[in-house]
């Protein structure tokens, strides 16, 4: 069984031995831990002694009283934070000195235990800290293994989902309060914008589903020889409505048959994303040229548009999740910021490569290579 090392710094021997007695018999277990964790308690009675002790001893947790005969606990805390930043410190303070507790947490204490405390209060404080330490370790371990926990993804995602919701809620409130007056026509824009935000959200959810399918690896992939030219033709057809809306012509140049081992849904997602980007970020009256090439050792899909282009400095960010290049020209183009990251992930499943060439104001070419 693993044991966490605890150092108690308190000038009242009774408290030290009490804590020692309670904790050395206590074990902490959580459903997510393989085995329970016990505690090894050391006692010391002054801040000075604690500092000396810490030179050759690194506890996991320090229970630190503030009122000590020599230097104060809060100053010992500063020392610990400098020398043993990994150690979690719990301040022991009396109920009367809440200010001190706040000060201590501001200066790096993890939490505080108000004195006097019952054995149960001590145990539950230690349980919380143990959980915290355990999770911190696990996170570090997972990060090391390259399985980055996707906190950042989730927080950006929640932002992306919340923004349209807030907008729609705002519009509904305006309608609820009849803020635009009694003329119904005045509400047209409000309704249009709300519908647009709903649509944006739906697209985001669809893209997210694509992304989770790729990442979970749970979806049953059916990789089989397919005629990519056929699928590209179909995908060009699905672009019909948006290409008419934007007055962009899309041309497909391909031999009648290019066979490659793809999962049907995946290649469709790749092509749909590539084509819709080329149309969305195009100029009115622009064109999109899709080129399929069948070489002996690989196939190449390239999509060239006559759109607004991407500056060189923005290209490295392009394939990140939720990345959208924000400028005057893209402001009114709706997008989830997930399309290119999906394209890249899917292409990598086939050991393929994605490259981009672009000139602002002239257009962009995306080139995908899939090795045989």
């Amino acid at each position, binding site marked *: 069984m693993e044991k966490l090392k605890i150092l108690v710094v308190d000038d009242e021997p009774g408290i030290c031995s009490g804590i020692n007695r309670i904790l050395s018999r206590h074990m902490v277990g959580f459903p997510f831990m393989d085995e329970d964790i016990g505690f090894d308690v050391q006692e010391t009675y002054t801040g000075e002694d604690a500092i000396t002790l810490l030179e050759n001893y690194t506890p996991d947790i320090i229970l630190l009283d503030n009122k000590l005969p020599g230097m104060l606990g809060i100053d010992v805390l500063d020392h610990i934070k400098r020398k043993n930043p990994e150690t979690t410190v719990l301040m022991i303070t009396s109920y009367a000195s809440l200010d001190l507790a706040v000060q201590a947490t501001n200066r790096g204490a993890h939490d505080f235990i108000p004195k006097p405390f019952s054995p149960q209060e001590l145990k539950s404080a230690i349980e919380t800290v143990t959980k915290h330490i355990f999770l911190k370790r696990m996170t570090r371990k997972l990060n090391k293994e390259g399985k980055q926990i996707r906190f950042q993804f989730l927080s950006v995602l*929640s*932002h992306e989902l*919340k*923004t349209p919701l*807030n907008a729609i809620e705002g519009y509904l409130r305006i309608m609820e309060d009849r*803020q*635009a007056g009694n003329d119904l026509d005045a509400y047209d824009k409000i309704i249009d*914008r709300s519908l647009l935000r709903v649509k944006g959200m739906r697209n985001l959810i669809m893209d997210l589903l694509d992304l989770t399918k790729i990442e979970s690896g749970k979806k049953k992939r059916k990789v089989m020889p397919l005629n990519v030219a056929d699928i590209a033709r179909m995908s060009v057809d699905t672009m019909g409505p948006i290409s008419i809306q934007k007055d962009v012509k899309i041309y497909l140049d391909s031999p009648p048959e290019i066979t490659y081992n793809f999962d049907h849904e995946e290649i469709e997602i790749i092509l749909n994303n590539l084509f819709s980007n080329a149309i969305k970020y195009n100029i009115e009256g622009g064109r999109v040229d899709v080129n399929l090439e069948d070489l002996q050792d690989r196939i190449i899909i390239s999509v060239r548009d006559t759109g607004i282009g991407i500056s060189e400095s923005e290209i490295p960010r392009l394939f990140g999740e939720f990345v959208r290049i*924000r400028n005057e020209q893209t*402001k009114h183009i709706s997008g989830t910021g997930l399309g290119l990251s999906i394209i890249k992930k899917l292409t990598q499943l086939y050991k393929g490569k994605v490259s981009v060439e672009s000139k602002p104001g002239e257009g962009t070419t995306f080139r995908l290579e899939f090795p045989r």
Partner: protein
Amino acid sequence: MQKFTRTILLVDDDEDYLFQTKLNIEQFGFRVITAESQMEAEDLLNTLKPDLAIFDLMMENEDSGFILSYKLKKKFPDVPVIIATAVTAETGISFGVGTEEDRKWIKADLYIEKGIRADQLNREIIKLLKL
């Protein structure tokens, strides 16, 4: 409806937020001029002196609101500035301008969350304009 002849400059890159907030503030009897970016706002400030400004924090730059606030205060030290943002709710980072020291470097008079209710916003505006 209250009627004040005060002009409020409202800057936010979220089209919907801009529209809604403008409508809200106009309901309270203020004149509202809007800009959709830090750049546009900087241009506007060359020719306009608002009675109060509300800036979104993150626009072209992560700190667009602070930059605008700094520039506005340099030109018109007496114009109150409100910085509105959704950062706190999403990042947990919060920084108010409660203390004198904060006010010095943040250069804003008030810091609000974007979810704030319209009547609350109105109250804050009235307070800052000393109406």
